[in-house]
């Protein structure tokens, strides 16, 4: 039915009153944060997790990070040969892999550019620190984040079947 031509003021009052009843009846749209927590979607870029053994300290992520917030130090050492009689392999050992989340802008270039799939996104977001220096997550901390990395979500119908990370 055509809406009655009510003067604008009262239509406005009607809208606010209707919202008052709606909120009273079926609850507010807001989430009471500390008590109820909203789960972020699977792909949310919360924190970067490092899978240490994949990393060969090839510095690709450090070079392509726009904010230069990845600091990597490694050294070369001899690792036992793969095959029994083969020569010992020279392997890059990772000493230090820090990401400074005070500088990071969560663009995701490092995760994408890493040729060895050592970096993953995890939707974890509750890691704020009172001291800004503690935002420099070292290798161990980044390793801990690995447990929170979810499986890649399955894709919408009609998508090519190659779910990248």
């Amino acid at each position: 039915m055509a809406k009655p031509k009510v003067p604008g003021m009262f239509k406005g009052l009607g809208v606010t009153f209707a919202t008052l009843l709606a909120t009273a009846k079926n609850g507010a749209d807001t989430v009471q944060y500390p008590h109820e927590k909203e789960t972020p979607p699977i792909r949310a870029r919360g924190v970067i997790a490092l899978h240490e053994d994949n990393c060969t300290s090839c510095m690709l992520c450090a070079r392509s990070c726009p904010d230069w917030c990845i600091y990597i130090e490694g050294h070369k050492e001899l690792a036992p040969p793969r095959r029994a009689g083969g020569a010992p392999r020279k392997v890059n050992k990772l000493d230090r892999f820090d990401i400074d989340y005070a500088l990071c802008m969560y663009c995701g270039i490092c995760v994408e550019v890493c040729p060895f799939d050592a970096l993953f996104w995890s939707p974890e977001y509750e890691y704020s620190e009172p001291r800004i220096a503690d935002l420099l997550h070292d290798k161990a901390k980044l390793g801990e984040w690995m447990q929170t990395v979810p499986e890649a979500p399955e894709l919408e119908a009609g998508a090519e079947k190659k779910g990248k990370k």
Partner: protein
Amino acid sequence: MNAVLFASDLPYWLQSIFRVLGGLVAVLLPAGTVVYLFLFKMLSFMQSRLGPMEAGPYGSFQLFAEVGKWLQKEDIVPANAQPEARIFKMAPLIVLASTFLLVVVVPFGPDALFTDFETGIFYALAVSSISVLGILIAGWASANKYSLLGGLRAAGQLVAYELPMVLAVIGVVIQAGTMNLQQIVVAQNTGSMFGWDGIGNPYVLTQFVAFIIFMISVQAELSQTPFDMPIAESELVSGYMTEYSGFRFLIFFIGEFATAGVFAMIASILFLGGWGVPFAWFGWTTIDSVDNWMNFAGPLILFAKMMALVFFIMWIRFSSPRLREDQLQRFAWKVLIPISLVNIMVTAVLKVAF
């Protein structure tokens, strides 16, 4: 209260202490409930959120938390307001004083009233314009361009809207035949509509135009949203209150909502029959025949009517944008005042005819 007090012939100083405590309760209690119920809860529910929920069950102690917060905040006086720091500090007290002076004349029950002025409503309207002084002083003394603009706008607006308020009240006074608020309440509850005295004769029905004008002027006196040019937060940050902090801002904040409560009480006395229910229901004929329990039920009835009126004030405040000050001045002078004059004339003619 008078009867109770006089009967036990307490020394005069003890009576005045009771009166002071009664005044505090009569002003702060409505202010507290209005702030909690409307500003915290109703506003949030109208915006599909729950409002404060942390302090106490359903956020009931939020107001005490806020008061605590403001009290422990530093009370800053701007540097270049130093020469008139005394005046700067005095401004909020003037605004709050006008509220307390206003509540003195409000009757809560047949005997439960502070004073019974013969010219009650005349005194109330005169006293309510003191707050304009406080706001102008606050705007000027803060030595800040935005509060100066806010203060000047407030001066223009509050003066402009006192006229229609006074003229609306004259309509009621003509119909009631007296300026004494107690008599106005009695007149409304003993009168009868066309012979049927089922609901007494609340002036909201016969004086409906005056009621609308009075409510609009109250909205403007409190500088609530359609008329909140003085505290236009999107332009003047918060008008004359910008430079205040700590418990001075608390006084302004409490003043704003206490005045809303007290004005709503006066409006309910003038138009909705104040503390009384139609006397015919209980077979009372005059004020002396009203039973004693009315002294306790009266304040509650007045409180309920006041909350209903404040609901309307706040409802309009939360859902309408702001008028520009030349538009609201034009609205006051060219629309409200002529209509209230016409209303006075019509009431006078009808008063003479019947």
